[in-house]
């Protein structure tokens, strides 16, 4: 899925003026906990978050996140936009909630990041970690 298709699906707004919208994303993840982003995402992920501070961009840089979507109509402060520009990470905004933004993308067949096997192993036996089109567990 390209960023252009993402933008259309979430009826979003492009914040980064010079972004390359033909970039492909392979999967997506919604999180407000940056440690979870570092733990559960893979290279090629689209991140949905309600946080707008520059550390979100830092986290994205470290985790190999392709682009960031700010949900609930939030717009990031200039320092976040500047850092994202420097690191070449496109920023998008959605006026919908985290649930709806993720839902719109999930409905198109965009895959979830999935969980690490390590985390899944610790679950009780009757629980199922993901019933959707999750990526192969690591």
């Amino acid at each position, binding site marked *: 899925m390209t960023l252009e298709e993402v933008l259309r699906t979430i009826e979003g707004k492009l914040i*980064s*003026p*010079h972004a390359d919208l033909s970039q492909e994303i392979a999967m997506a993840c919604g999180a*407000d*906990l*940056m*440690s*979870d982003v*570092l*733990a559960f995402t893979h*290279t090629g992920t689209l991140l949905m*978050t309600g*946080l707008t*501070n*520059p*550390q*979100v961009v*830092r*986290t994205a*840089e*470290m*985790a*190999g996140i392709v682009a960031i979507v700010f949900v609930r109509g939030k717009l990031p402060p*200039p*320092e976040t*936009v*500047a*850092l994202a*520009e*420097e690191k070449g990470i496109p920023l998008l905004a959605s006026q919908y909630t985290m649930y709806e933004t993720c839902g719109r993308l999930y409905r198109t067949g965009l895959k979830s990041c999935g969980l*690490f096997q*390590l985390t899944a192993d610790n679950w009780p036996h009757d629980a199922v970690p993901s019933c959707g089109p999750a990526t192969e567990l690591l």
Partner: protein
Amino acid sequence: MVDTHGEEKITASAKSILEVTKLQELVYELKIEEVMTKKVVTVSPDDTMRAMKEVLRMNRISGAPVMRGRELVGIISIENVIKALERGEIEATVGEKMTSEVQTLFADETVIHAVNKFGRLGFGRLPVVNRQGQLVGILTQGDIARGLLRQLEIDYHEEEIHRYRASHIFQDIVSDQTGLILRYKVQPRDFSRCGEAASKLKRALERLGALPAIVRRIAVVSYEAETNLVIHTTQGGELLAEIQPEKIRIIAVDHGPGIPDVEQALRPGYSTAPDWIRELGFGAGMGLSNIKTCSDEMHLDSKIGVGTRLEVIINM
């Protein structure tokens, strides 16, 4: 051994709100003389329009400066030829049909001057003169586009060379055990700069040609360790990366306050982070467990009042 202190000034804050792309930067940096065509085809005011038309056709150009000796006296283009043809005046001289009020550009001005002038005047080409008024070149919008693309390619090539040189460090320097030590100082409580050390280390590893999957693990480990130094230490600390051909050792050291119960600190979800850190999306007690997941070996030693030392090994 090479020892580098990661204290170079950051560009992020300097750039601030001004979002300048590489291309925009180049428009302000590149000189007109670097992109213009230096070999200029000129015509004489005494030539006929018919002869001038042939000059344009043979050279595959759409206009030319008009020179009387060494003096620039006008400019003529294909448009003038068409008008002359319409009126049956193809035998007229160039001097009669040319535009004699010539707009020029200075060779030592930056490309942005040319872009603005083209935008304002709508001309197809502008003669370029030096400060003595002598014709030294000609510039079209196509020249600008080609010049910018060429420069972008050069800049890209330079990064490739950096990468190539760095990746040969371990082959070029021979010893029984070659290692590269990168040392980064981390300030306490300064959350706005948190991640700079990890970011520099990540870039260094990319230049050294480490595999992307390995780079990602090292980035996560160093970022989480740096975050811990920023959030929890009283005087900050140091992040140290010892890079060897077959493995990387990352060490985060500080001088206090120290962890009261190391085993408890290692438990996923256990955190002593203050609320302001949690509001930023950190401090959920996942840092050390993330580090453990990404590393091949991990040791955490701490003593109250003395400090903490985290050592991680990741095999390349």
